[in-house]
């Protein structure tokens, strides 16, 4: 470092427009919103409950509400939060890693990979159990993501090549899924609910393993914030700062695959959460990944849970699948994003 005359401590690092305290308070507010949504998610359904009933249902095993609360609503709420957080974080990681503001986890072929695996299982092996479907979906997501990475040139994968490989794998996967579904009506019927994205299967889902898997991958993803901040300055600058972009991409793809793969396996392909949530978040936090990543996880959780609660309310006593609510809410927002002056470059 050069010798320079001492200067008054400038407001370095704490960027003036977005003080750290505002962003820290925002996290607290977000946590509060999630708590309220969680209570709503337990109370709202084909059988609505008051707060008192929710409380006795949670605490008193002998009460009427106990079964509904602990066997159905609680797992559903936990899964909704976990899947939402996973999708929000996976989207933010994907956009940071590819420096592409329009990237989402689906771009790694995770959704189609899972769908192709589920369709294969349903058609060729006739699997019906939801737990078996989860295994297949997860394997399919992982294979598609690794496939994309290899097609993109493995260690020499650039953001553009990753996006192209993802688009190719997605197109091929969709063609395969459609072909099988057209050939076989039974498979189509079986996949109908899975493929729109739904949390109705929550009671039969192994909740704890799913939550643990997502939590571990989320921690791994959050640790990448700082090297991703370096990568945001370009591959060359990142190298100069001591980040190996190839190693970082492998770590990022691994985290995204587990996050998005698990979420997709459990609730089917839910679109727009991974794409839209990081955009909303960046408008508030600015480009620092140390804030973008945790905010995206929490906002994703809140968004998905809110969509699920809404889906249970708007068509009572029937339900609208959470994937449809997300797409209906996310679609117009996405159109708004791309029609706006210009999409923020990363």
């Amino acid at each position: 470092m050069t010798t320079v005359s001492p200067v008054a401590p400038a407001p370095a690092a704490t960027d003036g427009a977005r003080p750290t305290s505002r962003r820290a308070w925002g996290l607290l507010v977000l946590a509060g919103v999630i708590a309220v949504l969680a209570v709503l998610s337990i109370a709202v359904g084909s059988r609505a409950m008051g707060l008192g009933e929710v409380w006795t249902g949670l605490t008193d095993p002998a009460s009427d509400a106990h079964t509904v609360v602990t066997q159905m609503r609680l797992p559903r709420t936990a899964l909704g939060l976990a899947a939402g957080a996973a999708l929000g974080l996976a989207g933010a990681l994907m956009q940071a890693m590819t420096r592409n503001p329009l990237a989402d986890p689906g771009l790694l072929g995770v959704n189609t990979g899972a769908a192709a695996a589920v369709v294969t299982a349903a058609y060729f092996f006739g699997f019906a159990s939801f737990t078996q479907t989860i295994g297949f979906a997860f394997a399919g997501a992982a294979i598609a993501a690794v496939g994309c990475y290899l097609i993109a040139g493995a260690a020499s994968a650039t953001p553009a090549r990753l996006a192209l490989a993802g688009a190719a794998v997605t197109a091929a996967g969709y063609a395969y899924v459609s072909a099988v579904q057209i050939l076989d009506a039974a498979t189509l019927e079986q996949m109908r609910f899975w493929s729109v994205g739904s949390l109705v299967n929550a009671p039969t889902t192994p909740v704890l393993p799913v939550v643990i898997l997502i939590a571990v991958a989320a921690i791994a993803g959050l640790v990448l914030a700082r090297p991703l901040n370096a990568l945001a300055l370009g591959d060359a600058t990142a190298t100069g700062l001591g980040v190996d972009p190839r190693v970082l991409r492998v770590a990022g793809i691994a985290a995204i695959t587990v996050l998005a793969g698990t979420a997709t396996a459990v609730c089917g392909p839910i679109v727009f959460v991974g794409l839209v949530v990081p955009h909303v978040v960046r408008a508030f936090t600015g480009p620092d990944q140390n804030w973008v990543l945790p905010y995206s996880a929490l906002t994703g959780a809140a968004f998905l849970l809110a969509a699920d609660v809404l889906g249970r309310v708007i068509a009572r006593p029937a339900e609208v699948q959470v994937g449809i609510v997300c797409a209906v809410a996310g679609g117009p927002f996405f159109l708004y994003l791309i029609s706006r002056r210009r999409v923020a470059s990363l």
Partner: protein
Amino acid sequence: MTDSLSPLAARNATLGYGRVAISEGLDVDIPEGEFTVILGPNACGKSTLLKALARMLKPSAGQVLLDGKDIHSQPTRAVARRLGLLPQSPIAPDGITVADLVARGRYPHQGILRQWSAEDEKVVAEAMAATDVTELASRGVDELSGGQRQRVWIAMVLAQQTPLLLLDEPTTYLDITHQIEVLDLCAKLHREGQTLVAVLHDLNQAARYATHLIAMRDGAIVAEGAPVEILTAATVEKIFDLPCRIIDDPETGTPLVIPRAGPRDL
């Protein structure tokens, strides 16, 4: 010059992309405390050499030595504390402020357990003062002029606190005023003890600002040394195929290359 004197060197290095070799058996020493400028015609391998020195390109044969040890055998973060790099077109994320961008230069000094410290804060403030961008601290990088932006990027690499600084064509997209501004800043850093290596296009700017020149052609080093010693009409013609005269720069006394008038101009 021996390895112990040169903090950064290439030994018998073959450089290229894929199977295409651009340089073979290259030996280069970057002298400590000098402002070294690598120059030469387009596609002469000067940017390739800089990339290799910055460990962005691994020699297919031979070595790049940092402090006498193979640069690729050292952890990349450790290298980043010795050697800073400003690439030709770095990317500023949308909406980032000057202070935040400069702060990202602290990356190699941080760890999972070593978070942002008062020391980081101080270094970032000093880097902004040295490049005269302190007043811009809370401004968005995308609002700045080209020259201001380049000074901010230089502040970012200064915040990295490395004894060696590599700049890949730092003046390329700037108008003449901002080119001089950036080169004056480099000269100031050099006077203050920083070792600099830059790739430059402009012969006369190189002659004026460099204290050590490496002239390349077709992947090989044609001449090396102080500008006054090596910038002769014969050398320039050998490097650029350009008939010229050399006069003294009336401002600085450094060599000034004047291309000869062709038949068309007479």
